[in-house]
């Protein structure tokens, strides 16, 4: 069974203080690793898909990287509007079901 573990559970940052979120995964035959952002009371919003080790993707202050065992979401010079829960999910080889981690809740203070 696919397993996804995110750390830390919560992260409190000062505006401008860069940091990284970790997503460790166990899946045989990874077809994709997905990052989502979720604001309170809303559905997850897609950020990135990574397919193979060494791949990197960027969007504004966010950069996602992938190795064979984990993914990192780097937040550079965060702003208060980056406050949200960030979810990681993996897609295995045999179906179209995503397995989600528990998420990291990021709070950025001005």
């Amino acid at each position, binding site marked *: 069974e696919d397993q996804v573990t995110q750390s830390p559970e919560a992260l409190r940052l000062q505006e401008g203080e860069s940091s990284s979120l970790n997503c460790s995964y166990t899946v045989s035959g990874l077809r994709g690793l997905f990052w989502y952002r979720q604001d309170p009371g809303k559905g997850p919003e897609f950020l990135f898909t990574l397919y193979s080790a060494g791949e990197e993707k960027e969007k504004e202050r966010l950069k996602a990287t992938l190795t064979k065992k984990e993914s990192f979401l780097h937040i550079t010079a965060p702003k208060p509007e980056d406050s949200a829960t960030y979810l990681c999910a993996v897609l295995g080889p045999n179906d179209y079901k995503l397995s*989600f981690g528990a998420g990291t809740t990021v709070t950025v203070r001005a």
Partner: protein
Amino acid sequence: SAVISQKPSRDICQRGTSLTIQCQVDSQVTMMFWYRQQPGQSLTLIATANQGSEATYESGFVIDKFPISRPNLTFSTLTVSNMSPEDSSIYLCSVWGHNEQFFGPGTRLTVL
């Protein structure tokens, strides 16, 4: 990208009653997915709904408790039956787009 709407956006219900949640997508899709997100938790897949066939339920979820309809390629409903306070959650509908899974805004259910 796919645009997904859900109704209702939230509801407060009494234990023992049932609630039907609707999910509408702006394009035709083969598979639709229903997730549950309990307070402070991540997303758990309830079932996959294919048009023209019975839904496929994940371990721990049964059709009697969560009956699903899929009458066409743009619409699905999830019913939460005989509700208890433990069913208080956000229920999310989702579909695959080109290479990403899109989610609806969710239905926040509170059971008293």
